């Protein structure tokens, strides 16, 4: 009888598959130090050299029905001592997911990543950049979406309906790194009269042929990247973000061999740009790509460390009118992974502009300590900027950043 009861209890537990609930996240202290005092470009701004801030990201996850149904909630908050725009919160995720046989449904606020290259992420278009977080465009704002995915033998189809648009975040007037003209995110404008309520659509087909994996995608709707329009606000030269409607076709592909990875991202976009000669918006089309390779030297100098070498070419056919910083550039990256118990790693990246002869250098290093803590160092240098280019404003903005984080 006893065994019967316990086996009954066990089978009940297995059948109803009790909900799993998990909390995880981090608390982080960030120190940013700018090597040069600010350029006195904007009146009434009081930029600093040292910017401390704190941030936290907390996630709650629960699933039931054998993990077929789940809810994920993730919130983010940063408090910056000087930059009021960088003091911000975001609901990164809040979605319900249902998986049934070969179908997957996702409803709510979520994040999606597309693409393969390292230097820039042209194809990745669903989520808006949380650009005030960092200049590498790897932090994203939560995107409201309805996603349906179907897995077939030949590949996977994803279809998206995106009912609400998120504006890109920009630093405030007292924030750094600063560009020549201040971008005022309070004066955003749209091509569509529906503004943020315009419904965007996207779809992606992902498949593979042996060791070649590829994705074909299309996006139609409000551009995540704004066109920056010149405007005088409070007698200051200001740029304001304008979000046109756009259509983009994209391809991302990676060929993996035993030692080499070959990567390609290619986009073609129907867009608008600001013509300074006519002083108005004009329709335009452009093509941009990132193509390159990655090679890893395993066990350098008879140690356990690996050294990865990444080289990528970045191209944009808009040339000098490009709103993209990378119109004819080469990126060289060196990634060192120590493979030790603290997961110590470092990444050195150099981007060289072959038109303007400019160089941007970044160094990122990370390791774990005391089990639940990480220390992350980041340095960025914008040396040798050309007065003709958009990055010229960054010439005094070299900085060093240290993040100390506790993870749970």
């Amino acid at each position, binding site marked *: 009888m006893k065994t019967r009861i316990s086996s009954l209890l066990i089978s009940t537990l297995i059948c109803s598959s009790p909900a799993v609930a998990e909390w995880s996240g981090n608390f982080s202290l960030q120190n940013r130090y700018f090597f040069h005092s600010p350029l006195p470009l904007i009146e009434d701004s009081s930029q600093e050299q040292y910017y401390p801030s704190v941030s936290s990201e907390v996630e709650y996850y629960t699933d039931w029905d054998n993990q077929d149904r789940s809810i994920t909630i993730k919130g983010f908050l940063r408090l910056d001592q000087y930059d009021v725009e960088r003091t911000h919160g975001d609901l990164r995720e809040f979605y319900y997911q249902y998986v049934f046989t070969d179908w997957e449904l996702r409803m709510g606020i979520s994040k999606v*990543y597309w693409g393969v290259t390292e230097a820039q992420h042209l194809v990745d278009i669903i989520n808006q950049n949380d650009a005030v977080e960092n200049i590498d465009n790897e932090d994203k704002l939560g995107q409201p979406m309805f996603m349906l995915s179907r897995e077939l033998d030949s590949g996977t189809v994803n279809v998206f309906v995106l009912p609400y648009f998120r504006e890109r975040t920009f630093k405030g007037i007292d924030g750094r790194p600063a560009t020549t003209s201040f971008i005022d995110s309070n004066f955003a404008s749209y091509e569509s009269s529906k503004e943020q309520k315009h419904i965007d659509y996207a779809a992606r087909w992902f498949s593979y042929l042996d060791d070649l994996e590829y994705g074909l995608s299309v996006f139609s709707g409000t551009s995540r990247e704004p066109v920056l329009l010149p405007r005088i606000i409070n007698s200051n030269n200001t740029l304001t973000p304008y979000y046109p409607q756009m259509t983009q076709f994209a391809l991302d592909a990676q060929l993996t061999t035993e030692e080499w990875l070959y990567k390609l991202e290619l986009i073609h976009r129907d867009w608008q740009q600001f013509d300074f000669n006519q002083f108005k918006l004009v329709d335009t089309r452009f093509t941009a790509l990132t193509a390159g390779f990655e090679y890893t030297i*395993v066990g350098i100098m008879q140690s356990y460390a*690996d050294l990865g070498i990444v080289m990528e070419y970045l191209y944009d056919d808009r040339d000098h009118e490009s709103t993209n910083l990378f119109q004819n550039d080469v990126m060289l990256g060196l990634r060192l992974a120590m*493979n030790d118990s603290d997961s110590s790693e470092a990444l050195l990246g150099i981007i060289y502009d072959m038109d303007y002869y400019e160089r941007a250098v970044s160094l990122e290093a990370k390791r774990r300590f005391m089990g639940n803590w990480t220390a992350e160092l980041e340095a960025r240098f914008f040396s040798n900027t050309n007065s003709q280019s958009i990055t010229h404003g960054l010439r005094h903005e070299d900085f060093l950043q240290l993040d100390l*984080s506790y993870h*749970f």
Partner: protein
Amino acid sequence: MKFNISTSLKYSLAITLNLLLIPAAIADDAARGLEIATETDRRDTGFIDLTAEMVMELKNKQGQTNTRQVRVKTLEVEGDGDKGLSIFDTPADIKGTASLTYSHALKPDEQWLYLPALKRVKRISSKNKSGPFMGSEFAYEDISSQEIEKYTYKYIKDETLNGIDTFVIERYPAYKFSGYTRQLVWINKKEYRPEKIDFYDRKNVLLKTLTYHGYQQYLNQFWRSDVMKMVNHQTGKSTTLTWKNYQFKNGLTDSDFNRNSLKRAR
């Protein structure tokens, strides 16, 4: 016996015989080694799928420890290497990171990594099989599925190891980027399961020893050890894997082991 065979002829005949016999003996040992490996593999065939939880304890020379918790799912693939999914629960900063591996007998393995902060699935080069798995003393090739074709074999001797009768066989990795020249494996004669493995590095110097403890039999067939201990003789570091909650035949399918399920891995 009427033939008057000269001593020199006798001598050369003996040499010829010896020359014929030595390769035959080598071939015998190779065949016997392969036979033992094949039987070991045969007895572990048919588990279909397996899930388990693992705690890794990394210990350095000074005795300081570091732990990681990993959940592992394996799908048996007939006629090829298994498919495996690993989900990392700790350290907290990499929580939610997952890796998917399709191991193959002769082709290089295919491997993907899921990075939860970026929501990015990355196909990675499978070349670094000799590299440490999560900073431990286990290399990727030590924990990946052990297919017969991944090695060539040689029977060495019979030996009693801690009171257990074992075959000692030597195996040589067929994979050109392996971190080892050879491995010496002690296989339980009765149950055909490994009890101990000595790993020799690229310079043929003893690098590590793996020992299996607390074997238990599941479904009246499959032996799994509760504790696996790897000691690095060159650095003095060690890693102990403690296994829990082995579950066989969970009804997992190919769709639990693809890029989409990797993104959803929990």
